[in-house]
Each structure stands twice: as C-alpha cells, then as structure tokens.
C-alpha cells in the first residue's frame, strides 16, 4: 500500500511540473472551451472553427504585425463546462502558457468568473457566445461577439406579432440555463407590454437535461396560444417540437439563436420545417465571406457550422485584428496584452461573417439580428434583418 501511495504521489507531481516549451515568433492565443461536460458540441464547434482559421493564416505564412510575420499557436483548454475549471483554465492559459489573449468560455456560467480572472490579470478575453450582461459589465478587458438578450427579445416579439398576427403567446424555457431563462423573461415583458397584460397565456419551464416535455406542452396547448416561443438549445427543440405535434398542437413556433445548428434538422426532421427563429446569421443564401466560411467548414468537418462556430471565427478574428492594430509586438507580455486591448477597443467597425459589428463602451457588440425560416429542404433561409436603432 505504501508503494502504491508513493508511486501515485510522485506520478501526479511529475505530471504537474511538466512545463510547456516556449517558441519565438509565435502568437499564442488560448481557448477556454467546454470539450467535455454538458455541452461538448459547443466546444467542438469552437475548436474546429479556430483550427480552420489557424490553418488559413499559418498557411499564408502567418499573421503580419508591424511588418513581421508571426505564426499562430492556439491552445485549447477544456473547462468541462464547470465554473471552477474555467477559472483554473483561464489562469493556466494566462500564467503558464503565457497567451496574448483568450477566446471563450462560451456559456455564461463559465464566462462570468473567467472574465473576472482575465480582467484582473490584464488579459483580453472575448466570449463568442455568452449573453449574460455580467460577463462584460465594468470589465474593460472583456469583450463578446454575440448580441445581448435585451436586443434579441424584442426582435422575436415584433416578428411574431407581425408575421403570425399573434395576440397571445406561450413560452417554454430551460429554468437552469441562464441564457434561456433571461431571454424568456425579456420576451414575456416585451410581449405583455405590447399586447397587454395576460397575453402570455402560459410561461412554463423545464430542466436542462429533461427529455420529456409532455406535461408542460399539455398545459401550454390547453391555454391555446397563437404561437409558442422556445428559447432553448437545438437538441431540446428537436424533442419539444415533435412532442407538441404528437400532443395535437398545430400552431406556430418561434425560436432564438440557440436553434441555429445544422444538427437541428437531422435531429428534428420534418416537424421543424417552416418554423422561424432569430439568429446571428442565415446559413442558406449567405453571401461572400460567410458563404465561403460555411462551405469550407462543411467540406472539412462534414456539417454546416452552427452559430458558435461562426461566432468563434469572428471572435478570434477580432482578437487578431486587435493584435494588428497594436502595431507591433515587443515580446513583453504585459505590454503586448495592453496594446492588444487598446487595439480591440479601437476597432471602429468589424466586418464579421455574422454581420458587421462595433463595440460599445462595455465591450458588447452592436450588430444586427436576422430572422430565418427553416425551408422545406431543411435550409435556414433569410427572412428579415433587424438592426438596433
């Protein structure tokens, strides 16, 4: 037993002390993403998009900063979709891997604490996907690439009222998912303000890993809403919509950006055809850089990229743009990191594949949302674009 204990100790200590090698003339960027845990798909999409971008730039000889070409090196840290793991991952990237900037974490549960760490240590962090206002609030070093819920909520309300002629609505959301809950509450407030109190006839919730929604749907259907708003992740949508149909519901659905995964259609099948949701970009009928990104991603990894992939691509490019804006890299970590922050803050307007954006003083992007309709062939077709005033 002593031998086992001693062996175990030395082994793990040795592993911890193994240090990464340092290479010159590279720009190192960290990715704090969930490769295991609740949402491994999100981490995978982020990683694939980043790999693609890295190959592009390194293939062209590297990123040119101040007349010199630097190779990119991306380090992917798994945060296991846990808050404490996101903190240690961020600190490891900052201290041990000495990255210049961090992309991720994606969901707010990890992005809020990791944002604190990055802000305290003076490292730029940009979250592709987090929608919680706390992620960037009063944190000059933290940015994000996604629009916030207070903007997306009204988009969904206005579209539904106009297109469905809806007088009443029902909401089904994920109680333990802060994104879903926040958006559902904003939607309810905006809708009731517009259509009068009591116009949201049912406001039902479920848990994150639930697979059966029959009770909630029975209650919703009994309330006879004009449409159901479902700000849920696509995998749950693929269960909710067919279950509603099997319970005899024939009306409309309205979704949010979390629907926008290519997997939605493989999972949901015919039941989801014809439905609408608001999102960052429309994959079908995309033009220019967006189309090029989608086509290449699809050729490489076998599926149409979801919004996380596109947002990670944009977020990473924002960081690279910030590095280029910094003018030159001195090799001194603190100075370079500060220069990158200034560089990103100085971005007037950025043309991303999820639309053009500029950052407000909190580090949140001001960008347009689009509403797409799922076509009969399962493509996400552009319906209308809504921009903030």
């Amino acid at each position, binding site marked *: 037993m002593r031998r086992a204990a001693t062996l175990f100790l030395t082994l793990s200590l040795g592993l911890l002390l193994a240090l990464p090698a340092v290479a010159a003339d590279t720009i190192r960027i960290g990715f704090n993403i969930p490769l295991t845990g609740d949402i491994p798909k999100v981490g995978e999409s982020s990683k694939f998009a980043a790999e693609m971008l890295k190959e592009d730039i390194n293939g062209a000889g590297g990123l040119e900063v101040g007349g010199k070409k630097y190779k990119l090196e991306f380090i992917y840290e798994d945060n296991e979709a846990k808050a404490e793991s996101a903190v240690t991952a961020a600190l490891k990237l900052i201290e041990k891997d000495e990255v210049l900037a961090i992309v991720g974490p994606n969901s707010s549960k990890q992005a809020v604490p990791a944002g604190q760490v990055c802000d305290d240590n003076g490292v730029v962090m940009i979250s592709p996907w987090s929608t919680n206002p706390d992620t960037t609030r009063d944190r000059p070093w933290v940015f994000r690439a996604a629009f916030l819920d207070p903007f997306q909520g009204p988009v969904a309300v206005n579209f539904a009222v106009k297109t469905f002629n809806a007088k009443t609505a029902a909401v089904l959301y994920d109680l333990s998912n802060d994104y879903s809950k926040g958006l559902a509450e904003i939607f309810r407030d905006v809708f009731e303000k517009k259509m009068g109190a009591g116009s949201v006839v049912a406001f039902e919730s479920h848990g994150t*890993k639930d697979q*059966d929604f029959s*009770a909630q749907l029975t209650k919703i259907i009994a309330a006879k809403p004009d449409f159901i708003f479902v700000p849920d992740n696509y995998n749950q949508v*693929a269960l909710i919509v067919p279950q509603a149909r099997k319970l005899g519901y024939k009306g409309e659905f309205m979704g949010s950006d979390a629907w926008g995964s290519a997997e939605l259609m493989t999972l949901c099948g015919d039941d989801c055809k014809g439905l609408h949701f608001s999102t960052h970009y429309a994959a079908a009928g995309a033009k220019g850089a967006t189309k090029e990104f989608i086509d290449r991603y699809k050729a490489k990894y076998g599926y149409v990229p979801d919004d996380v992939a596109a947002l990670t691509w944009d977020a990473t490019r924002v960081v690279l743009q910030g590095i280029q804006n910094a003018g030159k890299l001195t090799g001194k970590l603190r100075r370079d990191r500060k220069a990158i922050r200034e560089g990103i803050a100085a971005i007037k307007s950025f043309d991303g594949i999820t639309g053009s954006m500029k950052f407000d003083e909190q580090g949140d992007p001001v960008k347009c949302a689009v509403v797409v309709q799922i076509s009969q062939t399962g493509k996400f077709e552009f319906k209308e674009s809504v921009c903030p005033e």
Partner: protein
Amino acid sequence: MLASILQNIINALQWGSFYALIALGYTLVYGVLTLINFAHGDVFMVGAYIAFFVATFFLSTLGLPGWLVLALTIPATMILTSLVGVTLERVAYRPLRRKGANRLYVVITALMCGLILEHANLAILGASRKAFPPLIKETVYTVGGVSFTNLKIGVIVTAVLVFLFLQWVVTKTRVGMAMRAISYDKFAVPLMGIPMDNIIVATFVLGSGFAGLAGLLFAMSYPVLEPYMGALIGWKAFIAAVVGGIGDIRGAFLGGFLLGAVEIMVVAFFPSTFRDLIAFTVLLVILTLKPTGLFGVAKTTKI
C-alpha cells in the same frame, strides 16, 4: 379540464414507464448483490446507442422495412447491451467482490465505469448528437381532446409486460429462487451447491438486457441521442427504485410510475419552475413516513 387530466395521466404513464424499466434493472442487481449499480443509467445510454447502430445498419445497409428492423433490433440490442453489463460485472465488480471490499467501494467503481462509458462514447463518436431513425410510423390518435400515439401505448404495454416477466422469473423460476436465496444469505448459498457467479451473471444479463430495451424504446420516443442522456434519468430511476423499496420488483415498478406521475402532475398543477422542488419534497415526505420505501421490508437487526 377532464381531457387535460386524462392527457396528463397518459403522459405520466409513458414517462413513468422509462423510470420503471430502468429502476427494474437497479433493483434486480441490488436485490441480489446489495450493490447500487450507478453505471446502470449509462448502460441504458449504451443500449440506446447500440439500438441506433443496429437499426441504421439494418435500415440503410440491408434496406429492410421498418417493422422488420424493429423486430430484429429488439433482440440484438438486448443481447449486446447485456454483454456490456456482464463485461462490467466481470472486469470491475467481481474482482472487488472477491476481495471482500466494502460495498460502497463497488458503488464508486460503478460510478467510475459510468464515467468511462460516457466519455469513451464522447471520444469515439464525437460530440454530435445522433438522430434515431423512425422505425414505425407514429400515428396520432385523438379521442375527446386526448392525444396519444401508438408508440406511447407500446411503451406502456412493454413496461407492464417486462414487469410481469421479471416478477415471474423472480418468484416462479429456479434462477429467481436462487437470486432470492443469495439476497437472503450470501454465505450459505454456495454451500447449497448454487453456482453463485452464474446467478449473478444471469442477474446482470436480465438487468442490462432490459436497460437495452428501455434504451431502444427511449430512442424511439425521444430520438435525440447524446453521451450524457443516461446520467440524469439513471439517478432519477435509482430514486424511483428506492422509493418503491429497493430490492423488490413491485417496488421498482410502482416507484417508477410514481416518480413519473409526481413529476408530470407537479408541472400540470403548479408553476413548472417548482417541479424539482415539489417532486423531491414529496419523495422526502414519503421516505420520512415509510422509511424503507413503499414495498421495503424493515430489516430485523440481530444484536
């Protein structure tokens, strides 16, 4: 109002069927070994994936019609899943049992096996979720405002049949008698010439086989497969088994339906945000009033 109550009863029966099917597996293993097989939820997940691969193989490679595929997938899934369960028993649990480890260490080993199954799946198949192909045409019947499908009825009927079968096995057959004997006295049984290891393997075959069947039916009813799908439902089925009185087939069956009914009815009559709160408070009250579950027998303790 009546229609909505009836509708919720059907919903509860269907959802409870899955809890019951998984809880039966927990309770079988527990009854024989007093081992909480925490890997059982993940065996159920593996069952769903096996069903997925078998069904897609028959459907696309051989191009068989749906009903035939279903008829072939059911036995194939059950056999393959029971192999997984037996492998776990052989590789992880049996050596520990031989060494006379505290049963809680076996429980932790089971937890670890579950983690391995989940993440091996994630590492091998990637993070993409799988869509289970529709095998039979689901028809929606609406009678007086109550909607149900042929699949829902099939699931409920299967759960009842499985329960009756297992009840028959445990109470009427020689294997069942041996199982009960082992749970009654582990030390005397080998002396009576009962091959204990074989009986334990048989238990795992039954438990995992029906977990595979549950996985198949689950995949047909909720056709989105992901590596973590078994974790939560596994925990809850364990809760159901214990509330029913763990180690008792009737207890697991009833506990499963009870948990399903409580979860669905709370949502139906209270704000749905309170579901877990109320559902688990109800269970807590049940266990406080009946400390050994609904069918559990208070153990007499020798002093």
